[in-house]
């Protein structure tokens, strides 16, 4: 059984959603870990939640990446263990250099909060093996700084190495280059995405399209362990 850490930063507001998705819905051993902690020893995976760490001061995620816990997150990423960041968690992972590119203010200037269609571009990852490739799913987004940008060279590399995992389908809600909604690192063990799979895991709330992301990770983590 995997043991998963959910990091809580000042201003995180989706930490409970992640915890409940893992604990209540997936029955996984999960613990909150403060940004003040310096170790993730004993955990098999770590997740960075959505929210507005440090009030999004300066740039989203730019302050959180210097918190005590981040060297431990980097260590887990370099050890090949699963690292997942959604929304602000994605922003923190790019600021920390664990994922390429950056998330800038939405081109439309507005905070966008709605459910959007996505294409699963790569299902050969730890996080997406329970989806079909090119499958369309719907997940909620809620962000002001979700426009993914990177150099043309980086974008080409992402495509060449199959690191683009999710793309916005039909519409691009924030101006992200090449409609990118989620990417992994080259090794495939770090996933960052702007949509919120943890908000779509229970039928009673109207959408379970996010559940298979967690099921994928648990299946692959258990098999590998």
């Amino acid at each position, binding site marked *: 059984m995997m043991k998963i850490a959910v990091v809580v930063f000042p201003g995180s507001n989706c930490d409970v959603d992640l915890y409940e998705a893992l604990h209540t819905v997936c029955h996984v051993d999960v613990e909150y870990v403060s940004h003040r902690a310096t170790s993730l020893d004993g955990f098999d995976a770590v997740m960075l939640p959505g929210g507005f760490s440090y009030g999004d001061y300066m740039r989203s995620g730019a302050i959180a990446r*210097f918190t005590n816990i981040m060297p431990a997150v980097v260590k887990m990423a370099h050890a090949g263990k699963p690292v997942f960041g959604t929304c602000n968690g994605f922003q923190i992972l790019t600021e920390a250099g664990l994922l390429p590119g950056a998330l*800038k*203010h*939405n*081109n439309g*200037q507005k905070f966008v909060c709605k459910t959007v269609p996505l294409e699963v571009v790569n299902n050969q990852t730890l996080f997406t093996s329970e989806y079909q490739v090119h499958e369309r799913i719907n997940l909620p987004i809620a962000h002001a700084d979700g426009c993914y*940008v990177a150099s043309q060279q980086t974008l080409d590399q992402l495509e060449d190495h199959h690191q683009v995992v999710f793309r916005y389908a039909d519409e691009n809600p924030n101006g992200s280059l090449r409609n990118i909604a989620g990417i992994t690192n080259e090794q495939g063990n770090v996933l960052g995405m702007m949509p919120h799979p943890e908000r779509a895991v229970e039928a009673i709330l109207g959408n379970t399209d996010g559940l298979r992301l967690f099921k994928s990770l648990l299946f692959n983590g258990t098999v590998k362990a």
Partner: protein
Amino acid sequence: MVNVRVFVTYKQSVFDPQGDTITKTVHTIGHPEVESVKVGKFFDLSLDTMPDQIDTVVKDIATKLLVNFNMETYTYQVLGD
């Protein structure tokens, strides 16, 4: 004490939605001669350091913290004491 102002803006290649919107409004108020407006932010640093160290200190802070070079660039100006 030396005061330094660090200006951070989007790189030329990155779309600046605020600048684009403001440019259109500048045209609306009767200034079609304005080709573009770029929006950025500035940080005022008060440094207790020797003048020959200013460049090193500012570069270090800018590159590690103030600027994300995936989308931004910066300049700085020494404002004086």
